[in-house]
């Protein structure tokens, strides 16, 4: 008979462990359901949060400027604090700035062809460069210079504009607006409003503004090494310059720590973790207890403590990974189904979500197996004899 050496030597022992686990179908199913349910809840919660965070910084992502200059008190794109024009001049004069342009972003109400009103987000781009313009899927970008021209973003909110065509007219503060093209963007907005792009000057002309009108200044540095210098110079004049990534992070932190959203999601994630731990921990513990004598018999026959340890760890890992895969799959399916009916459903499964859920599953498996390991490794084969 062949004796197997190396890593394969463990295959037989692992196969016994696998059969002991999966042949007890009711318990195995309970374990898998417990972990899958916990993973489903954890991934679902964190995905919704990630989706919301992604949407919250959609303007920053879609515009794509590398450096954003703003009032230091600004928390998100939506609650921008207008800056005076001299800031733009000052930024343009900083060494290392290739170019800097103003950006206008504000909410507004448009009156549609049917006579109904619809809230929109209007983004005003610098007319000389159109820096931060979206990619057009229909129409010509040059038409934005035509009278009353607006570009509509064809995203999940687009239908709220009553499915306009090129040439469709609307009213904005008693001004006539005309759709001259349709654009696509990377990320839809958080607040469920359609987005209209126009020129900076037309935006501040159409929408009632405060004394200052520049929402943000978009900066293109000459090279990456200049960014730090630009940030220092902007700070000297009392404003804040952040890279795209820093601004996205700032928005995320705002929603996480200052809106209660993050806390609620965290609580739900912890609850999911506890539910998963309770179900799978208890089931695994019962499984171990039921097989304790059998493990003791194996130990009496000649299995070493570390071999039993490997068997239990394998069982816990296999259960955890299977439950994890099912949970993630279930969550993906639900999000896909939700998107089918609700195109604007804000949920996004990221590697970070998956990583967090994976770590929590590993902890669940670890705790569950620790309980079992103690029970099995400490068993005295003599107890088997005594019956």
């Amino acid at each position, binding site marked *: *008979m062949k004796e197997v050496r190396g890593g394969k030597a463990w295959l037989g022992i692992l196969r016994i462990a696998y059969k*002991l686990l999966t042949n007890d179908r009711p318990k195995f199913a309970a374990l898998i359901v417990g972990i899958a349910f916990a993973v489903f809840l954890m991934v679902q919660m964190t995905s919704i949060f990630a989706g919301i965070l992604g949407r919250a910084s959609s303007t920053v992502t879609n515009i794509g400027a590398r450096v954003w200059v703003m009032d230091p008190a600004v928390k998100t794109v939506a609650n921008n604090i207008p800056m005076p024009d001299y800031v733009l001049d000052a930024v343009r004069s900083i060494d290392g700035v290739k170019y800097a342009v103003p950006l206008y972003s504000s909410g507004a109400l448009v009156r549609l062809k049917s006579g109904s009103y619809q809230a929109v987000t209007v983004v005003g781009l610098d007319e000389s460069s159109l820096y931060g313009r979206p990619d057009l899927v229909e129409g010509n970008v040059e038409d934005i210079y035509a009278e009353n021209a607006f570009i509509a973003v064809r995203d999940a909110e687009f239908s709220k504009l009553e499915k306009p065509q090129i040439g469709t007219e609307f009213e904005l503060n008693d001004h006539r607006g005309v759709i001259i093209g349709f654009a696509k963007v990377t990320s839809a907005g958080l607040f469920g409003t359609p987005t209209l792009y126009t020129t900076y000057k037309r935006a501040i002309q159409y929408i009632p503004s405060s004394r200052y009108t520049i929402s943000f200044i978009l900066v293109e540095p000459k090279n990456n090494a200049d960014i730090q210098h630009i940030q220092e110079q902007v700070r000297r004049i009392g404003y804040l310059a952040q890279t795209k990534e820093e601004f996205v992070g700032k928005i995320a932190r705002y929603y996480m720590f200052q809106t209660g959203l993050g806390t609620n999601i965290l609580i739900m994630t912890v609850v999911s973790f506890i539910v998963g731990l309770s179900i799978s921990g208890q089931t695994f513990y019962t499984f171990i207890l039921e097989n304790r004598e059998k493990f003791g018999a194996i130990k009496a026959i000649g299995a070493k403590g570390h071999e039993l340890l490997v068997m239990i760890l394998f069982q816990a890992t296999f259960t955890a990974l299977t439950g994890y895969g099912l949970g993630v799959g279930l969550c993906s399916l639900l999000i896909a189904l939700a998107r089918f009916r609700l195109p604007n459903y804000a949920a996004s499964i990221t590697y970070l979500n998956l990583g967090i859920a994976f770590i929590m599953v590993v902890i669940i498996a670890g705790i569950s197996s620790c309980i079992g390991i103690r029970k099995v490794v400490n068993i*005295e084969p003599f107890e*088997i004899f005594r019956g």
Partner: protein
Amino acid sequence: MAAAAVKAMGLVKWFGEGDARTFAVKDVSFEAHFGEMLFIVGPSGSGKTTLLSMISGILRPDAGEVQVEDRKIWSMTNDEIADFRLNTVGFVFQDYHLFPRLTTAENVAIPLILRRENWDDAIKVAETYLEIVGLKERTGLTPRKLSGGEQQRVAIARAIVGRPDILIFDEPTASLDGDTGRKIVDFIKKEILNDRRCIIIVTHDGRIYEYADRIMQMEDGKIMNTVQGALHEE
């Protein structure tokens, strides 16, 4: 006389401490030989199972030593003792302790799997041993679908599949009716025992004493007397 397979020297075992200390085995010495079927008998609580555990490398004595084939087992490390049990001793437990979720062939193959033998080969060998114990047609069934006597035979197949020199049976007939019990012990004596093997059976079932080569009677942790039983015939 055949060579000594097991040599117990001054074994002592107690449980509890202080006033609660109880001696289960008191200075027991004996030898079991190859080709011999030794019965250890006595009432419950006489120390039979404790003695059996000490000579099979399961329970460390508080004093004394056990020598098996010139090896002093209680001088070994825990891993060495586990290897000793795996390679030298075959166990048949009172409640069999078969895995209900594994097939009979898989149950029997466990000692071979623990020896890191190839799974398919181990199953084939296990099937051969199931044939030896008369369960050729039961290899794919789980133990739950077998009768008590059949489960006992599976446990015997598991004990002998690794060709151990020493076989330990703990109350092998306790869960069986008289007729089945006798058949099992008769089978053990005729088919399992040979010149290179020593079988030690703990029992208090008087119906099977006739199969013993030697009977060692225990009481209060001591060997009270030893009786020569029926001689084993090759």
